[in-house]
């Protein structure tokens, strides 16, 4: 087990190193730099480039970045003087996490309910309603839904805020728009899996022996139908994070996505790297935990027979 853990740990660290190195290289390959602006005289721009060490050979900048990283520092923004990358991530993270969790929370719950309804009422009204919802959710981009919702509920009906962040009302529209795609996916998965299970002999037997629908639903259908949902939760969570960029812009939400996009447009190198390192650590950390859990669950792995 110890050797297994050590191997996994090394693998995670190598992956982290590769992600940081590649991002560093690619980021410096894109044309431009943080101080390139039409109104800044070349002599002054050169001074800034020297001050922030961008005149050094790339390999030295790379080593300097690692030196900072190993001391636990993500650096200071080159565009916002004096603001540390840690501060910027710290401010944006709770916002992104809340938005993502709300979006996934409502959409997965409703998706399961809708899927089950459709499975029980195959080829009847509920099934068609679920189908229509799924087609809309998958085919209409979330920013279109967001703009439409904003117009109807905030501009016309004035029930909810147009934009901004803070109060409970502020996250209703963005979380709804962000969750539409996962609602569609989850409802389809549950519907097909549920329909399959409902046709199986043991369900028919359960029904025949007089078990109430609620028990069949809880014990047989739901449990089986949940499996593919669990499998897709990973990609769904990723899609929600990626998909939040447009939503954050429309609703003026100060999340991690908008900070990341802005840093790329500004060529704010430390922020680009910082956010990437953060994302990578979260993902790799989870993977490592999963690996450990697999080791606990599967005795073969514990004996050292990896892969």
């Amino acid at each position, binding site marked *: 087990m110890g050797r297994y853990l050590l191997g996994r740990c090394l693998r995670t660290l190598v992956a982290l190193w590769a992600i940081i190195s590649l991002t560093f290289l690619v980021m410096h390959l894109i044309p431009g*730099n943080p101080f*390139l602006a039409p109104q800044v005289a070349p002599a002054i721009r050169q001074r*800034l480039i020297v001050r922030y060490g961008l005149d050094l050979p790339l390999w030295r900048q790379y080593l300097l970045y690692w030196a900072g990283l190993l001391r636990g520092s993500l650096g200071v923004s080159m565009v916002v003087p004096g603001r540390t990358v840690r501060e910027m991530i710290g401010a944006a993270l709770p916002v992104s996490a809340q938005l993502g969790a709300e979006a*996934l929370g409502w959409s997965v719950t409703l998706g399961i309910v809708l899927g089950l309804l459709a499975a029980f009422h195959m080829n009847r009204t509920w099934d068609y309603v679920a189908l229509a919802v799924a087609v809309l959710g998958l085919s209409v981009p979330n920013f279109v839904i967001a703009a439409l919702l904003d117009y109807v509920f905030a501009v016309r009906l004035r029930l909810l805020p147009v934009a901004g962040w*803070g109060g409970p009302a502020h996250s209703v529209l963005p979380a709804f728009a962000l969750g539409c795609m996962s609602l569609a996916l989850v409802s389809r998965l549950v519907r097909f899996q549920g329909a399959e299970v409902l046709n199986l002999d043991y369900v028919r037997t359960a029904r025949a022996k007089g078990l109430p629908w609620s028990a069949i639903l809880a014990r047989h259908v739901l449990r089986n139908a949940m499996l593919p949902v669990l499998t897709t939760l990973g990609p769904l*969570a990723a899609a929600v994070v990626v998909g939040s960029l447009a939503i954050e812009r429309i609703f003026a939400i100060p999340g991690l996505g908008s900070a990341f996009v802005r840093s790329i447009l500004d060529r704010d190198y430390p922020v680009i790297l910082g956010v990437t390192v953060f994302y990578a650590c979260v993902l790799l950390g989870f993977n490592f935990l999963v690996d450990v859990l697999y080791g606990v669950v599967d005795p073969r792995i514990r004996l050292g027979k990896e892969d």
Partner: protein
Amino acid sequence: MFGMRRPVAALLALASALFLTACGHGVDLAATAVAGSAHAVLNIDWGTDPPGLNPITTDNNVSFDVLNQVMEGLTRLNAQGVPQPGIAASWGVGARGLTYTFHLRHALWSNGDPVQAGDFVYAWRQALDPRNAAQDASELQYIAGASALLHFSLPDPKTHPTAYAAAGTQISHLEAALGVRAPNPQTLVVTLARPTPFWLPLTSLPVYFPADQSRVMAWGMGRYGSNPQYMSFDGPFVISAWVHNQYLDLKKNPKYWDAAHVQLAGVHGVMVSSAATVDNLYQTDQLDVLPSIPPQFLSEYRGKPGFHSTPLAQVWYLQVNVNDPAFKNVLIRRAFSEAIDRAAFASKVVPGSTPAYALTPPTVDYAPGRPFSPLVGHVLPPTADPALARRDLADGLKALGLTVLPRVTLLLPSSSTTDLEAAALQGMFQQNMGVSVQVESVDFKTFLQLMQQGRYSMVLAAWGADYNDPTTFLDLFTAHSPFNTIHWSDPAYNADMQAAQSAPDAARRGADLAAAEKELLAQLPVIPLYWPTRNWTEQPGVRGIVFYLTGPDYSLKGVTKSR
């Protein structure tokens, strides 16, 4: 890497997200975000989070907009762009136009300290100190001795630490020799390098603002302006709250010398960058002013009460690569200019703008109250001349010994409006000249880099006036200009610009500058397209916002709101 492990990883991700939500110390903005209700609080959109509010080092437009409300220099411009007394109650100009003596009023910083002449001397020296790398320092170049500091070659502290340390003494000497002195706390004497008729209005710009010397020295230049607690204000408002990427609020500064004329209790400024969202906020009365209506929403506002359209001091043009195998020939440059239907472009592609018949916009004066545009006249025709364009193109190719035009690329910074403009130009070149132009629409930083490297045939670019004088545009193309990115050098042009610099009077100077612009328009290293307008709107009951042609966009000092 991910394979079958997804379900567990995903559950962990979800759980952690929920956990973080539960632990996050979210700031409840509901109270402040419900806009438009509090009496005499103006609701505006800054656009984005200002990247720092240090007036000495910043060159960011949003920072300028905020700083202009909370700070004040020697002067403040009125709606006509004429300097009005600010921290300076009055001033006198020496006989040769070289020396300005400012008499400061008894103004206070927001912390109660007096604003003294030394605060200006300190701030200007800091802005010119090469170690601070102040991005807008070029605006101070007119002061005697500034040029030596601007062009000071600073040793790299990483490779030459001793030389860098030694440079400090040299810099101190240069700063001491700078043409700005404070003979007593209420008097500031400024000496210019040479008579500069357009200099006085520059004293209203952020880089000319004073700095509360003792405080700023205690905080350090790096921390100054990073946070309201590291700022002293001498303007109509102070910053009452700043939550990054959400809002920046102002409240009236009771210590401001002219507080009696500040009607607003405060300003609530959100940071919304999406044009559609800004439009929605205004439609639902959550914004009181739209300083710049996005072009795609213009028709919605035009003709409604509160809508205004005022000219800007900007010009949009095609910058031509004079080192390009085809565009080095003036006939080919002329052909492309002749193929452009500027009237159609201005009315259909950029509604509300004026077709450019020269380079310098008509809003610019060559001397106070004397517009420059009539001296140059209508040089460029409003409509296209396809026959002439084709003939000039053919003649140009013949002169170059070419049979076909090499590939022409049009480089531009990508946006919904610029992409539309490029498509329209592409169509005009195709239709009027039979030339197909390849459009390269890239992000802004890539655009600047490619432009710097000269990797283009034509660039869609714009320039806005830094100050109210034709040289703010014409200096771009002189041989010595640091902003001359096109490497075009024309002896006749340089001679005219040189003559203007030593002209004995304003009329002579105007004539020399006009001659230079005519030469430019004959050679066409840039092909002017249009002069944009500011389309803006304010809610009923709101009035008094002053827009500027140069520097920060506006002043909210005199705004009243009666709703």
